[in-house]
Every structure is written in C-alpha cells, then in structure tokens.
C-alpha cells in the first residue's frame, strides 16, 4: 500500500481569464512537513481552497488517502481526512470556545458522547494554553488566541493532512512559540503538514521540503536549501532585471 496521503495531478483553477492555479502536481506522504511559499497572488490560497473543497478545480484530480476528492464539498474532504486553517481566522464568533471545539468533534463523530468530546477539547485547549477561555465567546478572543482556537479545532478533527495558512501572521511572539510547539507535536503524531507562510524564517526552520508557487504554477519542489538557491525561485522573489532581459 502506498504511503502517499495526498496526491495532486495537474490541478488547475481558472477564474475567467485569470489562471490562478496552473497544472500543479505534487504528492504528500506521512509524516512530511512541507512549506509552501510564493509571492502575493502566486495561487497559494486558491490551491488551498481547491484542496479543501471550497473551490472546484477547473481540471485535474486530487486523491486523499486513496479517495478521489476533487470537486467534493468541503465537509466531505474534511471527513476524508484533510483539515485546514484560514489565512484570516474564522472563529465562530457568537459561539463559545468550547462550542467551536465541539462542532468538528460532533460533525465527525455524531455518536460520540458529548462528555468525551468535552474532555478531549479541554485537553487540547490546555495544550494550546487557552483552556481558561473555554466558556468565553470566541469573538472576545484576540487575533492570536483565535489562531490557537483554529488549531485546536483541527485537532478535534484529527485529520491525516493539515494545511496551515499563515499561522504566524499577526501573532504575538509568545503565542507564536505555542504554535511552533503545536506544529512539532502534530508532526510527531505522524500527520502530514503543509505550512503556508510569508515568514521565511519559520518556513525554512520547520519545513523538510519546500514548494514554491509563482503565477499559479509550481516552480520548485525540493529540500529547502536546494530550493533557496534555485534560479527560478530567486527570479520569482526578486524579479527580472529588465536590462538583463534586453541584453
């Protein structure tokens, strides 16, 4: 049996005349920790939305744990084992932190005992250092705490592949450290993680493998040090010198 958790074959997404994702192919095995980088507008978030079922791909196929998931609704993809966070946190504002945690728990395990799920939620919130906020409305949480809540909800889902979209953006250094610990721990638990971030320091420190997107296409896929020196990547980040081009 293959160790591949997630496999993308020539995934494209087009919005009218804009080719947001252009024939992207790669696979993820367990327990890989992959960084995904690219300049603004490179197609990272669109690709995440396609992977998580929030957008249907224009073409291509996606397999998750052996099941074809391209074009499936987001809830189905989640149940198949792919969890994600959002670039701009999407805590369920007028619900308490505990209710936020119970939604994925009950959605995936409708027959589970509520007390068991609550116990698990307390455990996860303790791990993320926000247990004291359990019965607070999540709209009262700070931006960083909401990020932690999103990570907590992911653990309730217990997915095999996790996509973290900008987990460090706008987060206090102390909470960033908690997120670091979270990533290490989840990775040790044997889950595959795709980390999308503009924080190059964090991406290079954490990732075992790096994917680079530019204009929707995958321009590099390899070890961080190799990718760092790839001329195409340098070009994408630093841009062409017009004089060189004309020369």
């Amino acid at each position, binding site marked *: 049996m293959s160790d591949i958790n997630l496999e993308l074959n020539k995934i494209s997404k087009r919005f009218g005349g804009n080719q947001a994702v252009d024939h992207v192919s790669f696979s993820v095995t367990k327990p890989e920790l992959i960084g995904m980088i690219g300049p603004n507008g490179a197609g990272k978030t669109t690709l995440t939305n396609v992977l998580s079922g929030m957008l249907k791909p224009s073409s291509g196929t996606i397999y998750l744990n052996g099941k074809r998931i391209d074009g499936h609704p*987001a*809830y189905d993809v989640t149940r198949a084992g792919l969890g994600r966070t959002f670039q701009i946190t999407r805590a369920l504002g*007028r619900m308490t932190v505990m209710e936020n945690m119970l*939604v994925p728990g*009950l*959605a995936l395990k409708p027959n589970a005992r509520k007390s068991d799920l609550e116990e698990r939620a307390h455990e996860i919130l303790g791990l993320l250092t926000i247990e004291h906020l359990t019965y*607070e409305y999540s709209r009262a949480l700070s931006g960083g705490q909401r990020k932690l809540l999103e990570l907590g*909800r992911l653990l309730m889902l217990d997915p095999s592949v996790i996509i973290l979209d900008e987990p460090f953006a706008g987060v206090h250094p102390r909470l960033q450290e908690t997120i670091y610990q979270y990533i290490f721990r989840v990775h040790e638990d044997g889950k595959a993680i795709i980390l999308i971030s503009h924080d190059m320091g964090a991406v290079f420190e954490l990732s075992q493998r790096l994917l680079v997107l530019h204009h929707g296409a995958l321009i590099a896929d390899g070890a961080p040090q190799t990718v760092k020196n790839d001329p195409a990547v340098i070009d994408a980040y630093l841009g062409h010198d017009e004089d060189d081009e004309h020369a």
Partner: protein
Amino acid sequence: MQLFRQFEAGIDRGIGRRRLGYVVLGLIILFFLWFPNDSSQSNYAKTVFISGFFYAIMSSSWALLAGIAGQFSFGHMAFMGIGAYVAGLVARDGFVFVMLGIAITPESFSALGAIIIGTLVAGLVGLVIGWLLLRLRAAYLALFTIAFSELFRIIMLTEYDYTGGSNGLSLRPLLQIADVDTARQVEYYLMFALLIVCLLVMHWVANSPIGLFLRAMREDEDAASALGVNVVRYKILIFVFTSMIVGLAGAIFYSDVGSERIIPEQLEVLQMSLIIAYAVIGGMESLIGAAAGAFISRYMLEAMREVVITLPFGLTTADGGDAFVWETGAWRFALFGVVMVFTLRYMRNGLLYPFITWFSSRDLAMKETVSKREDDDEDIAQPMEADDE
C-alpha cells in the same frame, strides 16, 4: 443596586439561578393553565391569548430559522398560509389524481387529516425553497423569500374560484363543540398545548448537535463546512422543519380554533414584519424570548386599542366626562415601532435577553472567564492590541 447584588448573591448561594428560572417558568405555565378557568375572564380575552400563542409559535420558529440558523427568511407567513390553505382545500375539494384517474373525495378527510396534509405540503414546499436558497445568503435570501411570499399571496388572491380570493377560505372546523364558552376554553388549551409542544421540540433541536451545527452555519458557512458540517443538509433540514411547524400552526389556528378563515391579507409582508419584530423585541436568538416577545406584543397591541386617561384635578372633557378615551388606531403600531427602534439600538439581543442570561447563569461563566483572561494576558495585553480586529 447594592440590594440587587445581595439578592443575587443570596440566590446563587441558595436555590441557584437556573433552578429559580425553572420555578418562574413553572409559575408562568401554571398561570396560563389557570387563566381560562377564571370566570371573570371574557371569551375575548381568551381569544387574544389564543392569538398570542399562535404568534408565539410563529416568532419562536422564525427565531430558530433566522436567529439560530441565520437564514433571514421572509417566507414564514407564506409557509403558514400553505399549511392552512392546503388543509382547507383538501377538506373541501379532496384530492384528484388526474393522471391516475383516482379521486379522493373530501369525505375521506377529517379536519385532522387535512391538517396533517397541510403540514406535510408546507414541509415539501420548504424542501424546494430550501434547495433553491442554497446559494443565497443575507439580502438575496431575504429578497427571494419576499418574492416567494408575495407570489403565493397573489395566487391565493387571484384564484378566487378555489381560494375565495380576498374573502378567504374557511377550513373544516377541528372541534365540534356547541357551547361557545366550552369551545373557547378547549381552543385555548389546544393552542397552548401546541405552543408548548412546538417550543419543546424546537428547544430540543436547538440544543442538540443539529442546533450547534446551525449556529456554526449562521456564523460562517464556509468555516462550518471546513469543520465537517454538511451545510446543504442542515440548511434544507431547518427550512423543512420550520415550514412544517408554521404549516401545522396555521392549519390548526385557522381550523376555527383561533380564526374561522384564512385570508390573503394575513400573508402580506407587513404581517411577516410583525412576526420578525416580535422576535427581535423578545430576542431572536432565544426561542423562549421570541415566544414571550410575540405574546406580550400581541397582548399589548390589543390592550392599547383604547387608552383611557383619567383626568386629574377634577378636570372634565368637553362632554362632561372625567376621562379621556383615546382610540389609538394605527398609533399603537407607531409606539410598537419606537420599542423596536429602541431594542435594535440599545438591546440587540432583545428586551428579555438580560433576564434569560441571568437565569441561565451565563453571565457568571462570562465574568469568571473574562477575569481569568485578564490575569493571564496582563503581560501581553498591549502588544496583542494590534492583533485584534
């Protein structure tokens, strides 16, 4: 204030707020059970209460649909009308399956059978509308349901031969009781029982995992979906469920229980706006709040039809009377509008929200967690400011 705090502390040490809430609720139910047995109460007063129960079902079910599930629909009165009209038509004309050449005569249906069919058809239409609304949110959903509601009203108005047009349609009476006083009493208890049953069922739904998923959808459909919630299923489910509840309420109410005929005027957007207003005033995220808001508002609107102001200091009116009688007419609705404006501006969770949260001990939990958070975040509070929305 000090006295209130002492009282509050006493309650917390003693019976507890939640239990006290159950006691108060029990007393309110006992009052409603006793009310029709009070010989001093007129049949008119009982009729007002019956109407109040009906509107309490309408507003609380709308609170479930809009306040809890986030589907801001204006189609509630139309679904109620579907239940009532279908029950009326089935009991009068029966069913004719033209394609199969089968006719089921009106005699085949009891009033109860017609009510059940009306309820089922309301649910079926709710299923279709729910499916059509899947991709619509916020203002578009509201506009769609207004259009649907008006479409239904106009069809009921223009298809005179079938529906009676503006004269309305009489439904087969559910109860056959000759004595007027006894009939009113039975109708009162029937409508009250229906309200209690509907509230209990809706409360169960709202507090079950389904209720949790509905609230998650209300907050953010995409996020809920990413957390494994089948948004399509629950969106349709809540439309079907609430449509059946109001279809049932409409079919029973207009089967000569609260009113002897359903008229298209009842389906106007203004009537729907009143249902929404009752729910907003009571608290649109609380079933009990919305039901109480509807009942109290209906009662007040009736009580304010005629306001008697006794003149002080021996003053008299032009015709020598000692009291001034003000036929309020549409002004009572203006006053109602003022209450609505006040609620939306200052108490968006409804006028009853403070009482409900007090009894549910929710504010205790909030105070506790907020104080813990303040202690914990003291050292990082300042840098976090930039993170907040």
